[in-house]
């Protein structure tokens, strides 16, 4: 045994499982945010491992923008059924229909998620909400704690965060407050992909290269759908593409790619000179501090 230490992925996995179990031991009503994207899929896989052979003692919450990739919704419903989980849905479309939210002129619904998310947390009395956010994604997320206390308005105040030392996570909160929990804090995009490959985790097919009708907007390849379609000066073409992130169709772009297997995706990411959000997410480009501003309002 002398000198033997865990591999990088083993250490990340062990740390994430430790975080899941801390929440199970300390909170009454935790929930896992589940979008059907790779980070939330990895979270679900880790939660299954953390409580095996018993079932996960949490339910799932999907914030549905109404602009979903059909492949992702199909995947979501299949895993929920397979593991006998309970799925809560907070729907942006319902809020728009009820006149409680207004569609933005640019058609992007990602920033509209915050209100349905925070109201669902309040109405269901969730006290711990797992998010798949990683500190390597964005400079405001780099400042996030593993346990992040939110007030009754779900607000994040980066200057008033609790100091977080060792692996002693302080989850104490008053009624109405909750804690956002980020088990993948220390993972990078490459770690997530290498872990998916090592564990043989299934993903929605849009993560792999496929032929799809897309059009160019703000330097990104977007898929036409119910959310919108090309204007007169944008043309649809059929291209071989894949997605690096899965979010709202209106602001999640595809990248040109020939990577049809996990190994080729990993090689492509290792060689990429662009971050995943820089390459494919319009919502982060809205301003220099777009993520910080959204997080302050309650975004995860």
């Amino acid at each position, binding site marked *: *045994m002398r000198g033997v230490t865990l*591999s*990088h992925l*083993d250490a990340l996995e062990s740390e994430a499982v*430790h975080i899941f179990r801390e929440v199970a031991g300390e909170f009454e009503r935790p929930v896992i945010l589940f979008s059907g994207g790779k980070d939330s899929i990895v979270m679900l896989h880790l939660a299954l491992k953390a409580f095996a052979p018993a079932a996960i003692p949490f339910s799932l919450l999907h914030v549905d923008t109404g602009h979903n990739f059909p492949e992702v919704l199909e995947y979501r419903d299949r895993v929920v059924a397979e593991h006998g989980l309970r799925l809560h849905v907070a729907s942006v479309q319902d809020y728009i229909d009820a006149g409680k939210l207004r569609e933005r002129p640019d058609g992007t619904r990602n920033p509209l998620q915050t209100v349905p998310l925070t109201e669902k947390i309040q109405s269901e009395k969730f006290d711990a909400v797992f998010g798949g956010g990683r500190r390597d994604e964005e400079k405001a997320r780099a400042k996030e704690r593993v346990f992040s206390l939110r007030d009754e308005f779900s607000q994040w105040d980066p200057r008033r965060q609790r100091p977080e*030392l060792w692996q002693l996570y302080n989850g104490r909160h008053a009624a109405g407050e909750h804690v956002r929990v980020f088990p993948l804090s220390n993972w990078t995009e490459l770690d997530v992909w290498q872990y998916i490959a090592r564990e043989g985790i299934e993903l929605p097919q849009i993560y792999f290269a496929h032929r799809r009708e897309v059009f160019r907007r703000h330097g990104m390849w977007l898929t036409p759908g119910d959310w919108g379609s090309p204007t007169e000066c944008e043309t649809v073409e059929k291209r071989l593409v894949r997605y690096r992130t899965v979010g709202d169709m209106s602001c999640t772009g595809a990248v040109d790619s020939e990577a049809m297997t996990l190994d080729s995706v990993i090689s492509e990411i290792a060689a990429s000179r*662009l*971050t995943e959000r*820089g390459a494919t997410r319009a919502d982060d480009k809205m301003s220099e501090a777009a993520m910080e501003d959204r997080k302050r309002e309650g975004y995860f």
Partner: protein
Amino acid sequence: MPTTTTTPSTSTSTTDTLRLATAGSVDDGKSTLVGRLLHDSKSVLADQLEAVTRASSGDVPDLALLTDGLRAEREQGITIDVAYRYFATPRRRFILADTPGHVQYTRNMVTGTSTADLAVVLIDARNGVIEQTRRHAAVAALLRVPHLVLAVNKMDLCGYDEHRFTEIVEDFAACAAGLGLPCFTAIPVSALRGDNVVTRSPAMGWYEGPSLLEHLETVPVGADLTEAPPRFPVQYVIRHGECRYYAGQLVSGALRVGDPVVVHPSGRTSVITALDVLGTEVTTAQAGSSLTLRLADHLDVARGDLISTGAQSPAVTRYLSGRACHLAERPLRVGQSVLVRHTTRTVRAIVRELGDGVSELAANDLGRVTLRTADPLVLDDYADVRRTGAFLLIDPVDGATLTAGMAQTTEPARAA
């Protein structure tokens, strides 16, 4: 399930990840150093550099903007909160906690340093060792960071003078000896120009040591934990059918199927009948692993209990004494009721003493604390096992984290 003799995929003999923390005073150039480290190790991607270039006022990208990500930090040009950065070279992966140097943000330096294998303390070569340097060294000593680097920055503004470097190293060595810091590695750098950060500088031919990155890539990390006595704080009890599985992370040592164990604080004994490391049944598990274990006897074991093998037993005590760093704005006072968070256990306690007749600890004070707890704690000296020696004090009213503590079990027992 397959049975193997050890945890899967752990054949490496050195840790492939180094966790490090940086500390420096305002304007010592710490954010620039971190930016330079990321940039010159080619860990900054094109869109990030483009964003920084756009936000920079001059023609040259301001590398400090890579790390100062909050609005307020950019407005004030200082680092307010810990930021975590991830980068890799072909030799090793790095998790870097970039911590602020301001006195008022000492708690954030403590936060970043608590999980670090190595701390980099930055000094401005023109100013030498100043009060803040002593504070940073004191925090590193208090938290017992295994490795310390003294980065003497802005050497370009001192004409790359060897004598100035030597003078600062001698000053720091005197300060370190006073704090009981064992040893440190001193490296002369210019973060702005990139001298000795990633590549060795031709401007300082007199310096024969490694560049900062070379040192970070080769410093040995990690084997100590597996050689410490086994400590398994129970996090969660998983019931499945008739079976009870005790889930937790083995914080130190190794456990084997067949090992006789003691459950603290009850002192009951049993034998390990099965070990499972996240889906793989094993005969031996090692420090760092999250696992479940099963015992031969049906004991009452709950979250907050600690399982050891009996060799080198932990202390079971209602008296907790140790060093402390006070983190909160409100002071900690003698007689105050607090919660102690230690491993997976939270107990009520009263502050009995704050060392040398001190009646309160103010924000960012480094001091001592002695507590009387309502229920026993199972602990080690922080010097022996960090995870079972570390504790937090929490305000029972609003849940605020008040104080970070490091237990000293070798203190003489105090009367009630």
